[in-house]
């Protein structure tokens, strides 16, 4: 009995000692259930770029755990469930997610993808980065839905312009029609004053108002020989 208990304890100790080593072997470049992350801080932030260090890596793992929690709607995920490896100077690395219940089991790629897509916006904002500068290679950002207004804006502008133009055309046509009618009315009323208007010279293109002084009429014109 005592031998059995000792054996179990040794096995547990071995297991606890070996777990991290086991976990490490789960994370490998081109792992079947892992994703590669590429971060471009200087491109995104320029002068205000921060340095990538262990603390930032910790934040990354915490954010990923948050994403997994949100996706599965449980509270079982922790920072330890996110394993990172193969970090380069580019700032790119691989990560895998292990299940909290069974440390040897990896969460399938599809689920990780869905979890990341769901919380992509929050993950980006945690690092002040964008979809382009915090890349999950293989997970494409979902495209924003385009804003489709009910009436295309150009139709509104067109309506305004064409309305104004047609109003202007009608106004001009009506005004010229009125002018013509006024002239016609004037011609009919001044039928007897025909002589007056003939003698009213048109000086400089302006019709002189007022009656021409007959005292200075050119009488010779009317006497026929």
């Amino acid at each position: 009995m005592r031998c059995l208990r000792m054996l179990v304890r040794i096995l547990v100790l071995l297991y606890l000692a070996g777990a991290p080593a086991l976990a490490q072997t789960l994370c490998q470049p081109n792992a079947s259930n892992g994703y590669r992350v590429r971060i471009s801080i200087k491109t995104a932030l320029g002068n205000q770029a921060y340095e990538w260090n262990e603390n930032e890596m910790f934040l990354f793992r915490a954010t990923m755990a948050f994403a997994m929690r949100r996706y599965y709607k449980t509270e079982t995920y922790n920072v330890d469930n996110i394993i990172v490896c193969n970090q380069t100077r580019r700032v790119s690395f691989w990560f895998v997610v292990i299940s909290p219940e069974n440390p040897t089991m990896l969460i399938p790629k599809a689920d990780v993808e869905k979890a990341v897509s769901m919380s992509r916006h929050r993950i980006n904002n945690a690092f002040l980065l964008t979809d382009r500068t915090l890349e999950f290679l293989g997970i494409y950002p979902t495209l924003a839905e385009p804003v489709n207004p009910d009436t295309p804006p150009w139709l509104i502008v067109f309506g305004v312009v064409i309305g104004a133009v047609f109003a202007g055309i009608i106004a001009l046509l009506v005004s010229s029609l009125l002018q013509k009618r006024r002239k016609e009315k004037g011609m009919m009323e001044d039928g007897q004053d025909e002589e007056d208007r003939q003698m009213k010279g048109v000086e400089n293109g302006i019709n002189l108002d007022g009656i021409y002084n007959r005292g200075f009429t050119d009488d010779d014109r009317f006497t026929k020989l």
Partner: protein
Amino acid sequence: MRLQLPNPGLEDRILSHEELDKLETEEAGSGDRPKWDNKTQYMLTCVGFCVGLGNVWRFPYLCQSHGGGAFMIPFLILLVLEGVPLLHLEFAIGQRLRKGSLGVWSTIHPYLAGVGIASMFVSLMISLYYNTIMAWVMWYLFNSFQETLPWSQCPLNYNLTGLVSECEQSSPVDYFWYRETLNSTPDIGENGGLQWWMVLCLVSAWAVLYICIIRGIETTGKAVYVTSTLPYVVLSIFLIRGLTLKGSLSGVVFLFTPNLTELTNPTTWLDAGAQVFYSFSIAFGGLISFSSYNSVHNNCEQDAVIISAVNGFTSVYAATVIYTIIGFRATERFDNCLGGNILVLLNTFDLPEGNVTESNYDQVLQSLNGTHPEVIQGLNLKTCDLNTFLSEGVEGTGLAFIVFTEAITKMPASPVWSVLFFIMLFCLGLSSMFGNIEGVLVPLQDLGVFPKSWPKESTTGITCVLCCIVGLIFVQGSGNYWLSLFDSYGGSIPLLIIAFCEMVGVVYLYGIDRFNDDIEFMIGHKPNLFWQITWRFVSPAIMLVIFVFYFITKVTETLLYKTWNPESENFPTLEEKPYPAWIYVIIFILAGIPSLAVPGTALFRCLWRKRDRKSEQQELKTVSDQMDMNDKAQDGKSRT
């Protein structure tokens, strides 16, 4: 001994100098013939007619492709030798004979009426397609009133999984122009049906034109205060904005760097001559009409020189502005190209950011090529050269609707710049349309197509409606191809023929001596030696040379046109296709009918006159006619 062709009866057809003076003082016909309210309106209208879209999108391209600053030399020389004399001639003859183009040429000699008719046809054809360009400008203008311009990004495809493939392969600006504006078919034979949004824009373009010309120069004269001055304001705003953008100066430097070897290339001189000619809107008949509304003693010589100078200056100014923006766009493209390459290198070799920058890119690439040549080969890095981007010279609609709109999307506050740019294009085009339409309306009136009793509003209205309906050809799916067809053939060869006939007609049929006397009567001094030489020898010679070369080039070239075909292999490069056989008939109608109208009308009139003379001679043989003739002779004697 001056060469003067016989021209009997000329004295009877024209008003003498004394009659002209009487007309001026009495104003007897003040109701009949329109007049300018003031000199400014006249000058602005002429400037607006001459300064058009060609100054903005043809001249900069020519300048840059023919040796930059060196192109100024043939341009200015030909401006002085060809443009100014032709302009002065048209102004003087219009002011002297006080009629529209048809009236002027019929007056000079009845057989020359064909020149007027040809002018009318050309003006009509050009009006038809020019207003379609206005419709395109209005479409872009209407679409500029949005926060994100529709041509700045590709739309999503049907199931929202990605971008539309046609747009992805080409670019958002290309897609917006060829698909969402033109909805272009891959072939001129497929007409693709009417595009309803373009029909609306076409109707609005003709409506705006109608309201400006509704009462002739009474309304046009007011409209030009805006349409002729606004482009200069906008160009200046763009210049200031352009100079503050990165890379603009490299564009201007590229434009004006002279390459004097280009001067030995005859195409340079030919293109310069053609540009001067078309830019001055000569032979349309519009300028003759406009100057006939002037008072007799207006100084047309001064006007011609001023307008030529303004036109030349505007070309150079617009070219500078355009190339600041093109320089900015090219630099932007270059930066993106280089940035893309750098990113690829960083990602492939896992180098930290900032290791490879624009300055050490070449060194790093070389060293990497030395160590890992196969990897570099596999990357397919693009070669980025600023000069290549700058010399992607585009002209015409491509410049305005593709290159410039792309540059605008990269500027902050894009909608503002887009609205300004398209308003400027609209004003430039509208002021040219005034002259085009004048060249159509006045001959129609002179021919008596409309009854005299009809008011001006209805004649202009009917013309606009008919032109709009015919213009529906250009808003089909294949409309763009029809437009370039009309542009290449309808608006080129006939104009050269008409201008040549104009010069020969005035100098040799009307008589250079009489013309000199007329000008002395009108402006007070005889035209000096420069005018004599250019009118009589130099300008006609230049016109003839340009015409011959143009004709030969057009006739010998294989007729190809560029199409937008998403299924072609080299998409997005435009696919070149040969025209179908029936297009040759159309080309003949476009270029042949106006050109043949000149000799055709002469022949027609000649035959008509021969018939009249024959019937006259038959009448005189009867006795009663002889007696009548004697009576008439008696009357004539008593009157003197």
